[in-house]
């Protein structure tokens, strides 16, 4: 149990850093989804199924989708720099 928690905490730390270091916003969307998944697993291990569920719905689905859509609408714009 201890080992599992520690591993998941490390995973969260790593995926969090992954978001920061993926400087290309399109790749960052994947990193955000990955971090959401890591957090979901961590929350499950911390005996918080309710929170894990929300994180799954929000962090791995809704939030990356929003980022994707925002990126798409920025790309639709003619003066794009992305």
């Amino acid at each position, binding site marked *: 149990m201890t080992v599992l928690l520690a591993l998941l905490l490390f995973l969260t730390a790593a995926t969090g850093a992954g978001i920061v270091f993926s400087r290309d916003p399109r790749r960052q969307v994947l990193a955000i989804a990955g971090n959401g998944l890591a957090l979901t697993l961590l929350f499950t291990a911390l005996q918080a199924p*309710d*929170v*894990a*569920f*929300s994180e799954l*719905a929000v962090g791995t689905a809704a939030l990356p989708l929003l980022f994707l*859509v925002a990126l798409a609408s920025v790309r*639709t*714009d003619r003066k794009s720099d992305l």
Partner: protein
Amino acid sequence: MTRTARLLLFAVAVLVLAPAGVVVAMNMPAFGSHELPYGDAVNSTIPAARHISNMVSAVNFDVRGLDTLGEEFMLVCAVTGTVVLLRGERGEKLTSHPAQMRGRLNAPRSDALVLTGRLMGPMVLLFGLYVVLHATVTPGGGFQGGVVISSGLLLLYLCEDYQTWRWFMRAGWLDACEGGGALIFVLAGAAPLCFGAHFLQNIMPLGKFRDMLSGGLMQIVNAAVACAVLGGFALVFLEFLEETREPRGDP
């Protein structure tokens, strides 16, 4: 500031803060084995007092219901702001045809995608409804269910054509769903006042332990939260998608 100066300032600050952080961490109570008087009190009193098994829902919708009320209206603020910002000069008119992205073909959807979407979409919606309804018994509730339902609506978008979808997803309806959910929450809070009870006091019949409809007032609050979250997230998705569909003309 130049980039280097900024990084230097940040680095010095972090160097100062790091030992402070370590000192604080070392003085934290032992992980996993310290007292939790508040949580224990909730765990020991609520099942008998409110006849429900999901303590998190109990805290959210009853014991600390005021937090959720505030949070619901914060959601309303953020969604309203997002909608106002995105609509901007575009207005609320429906575009008669799906505009397409510049330099990109609007590929017809494959039959497989349509079929999967039509099968999956309703299933996701049903699942969301299930999650909302079982708030007081199993993990899940208004928040989670609302988000799931709104993403189910998004899934329908993938398989139906734009016009059908837009006909179905009217901004006015979603506005009403969002604001209405929030309104029901306030009214559910204020109703007990008429009976001489406190705001948000749970004076409804509580039902049987572990029953789907146990928890009294929590059921109403939960449904209200589901409405507000569903409407809010769907509105945000809708407005962002509209944004991608309308390439701006040359300035």
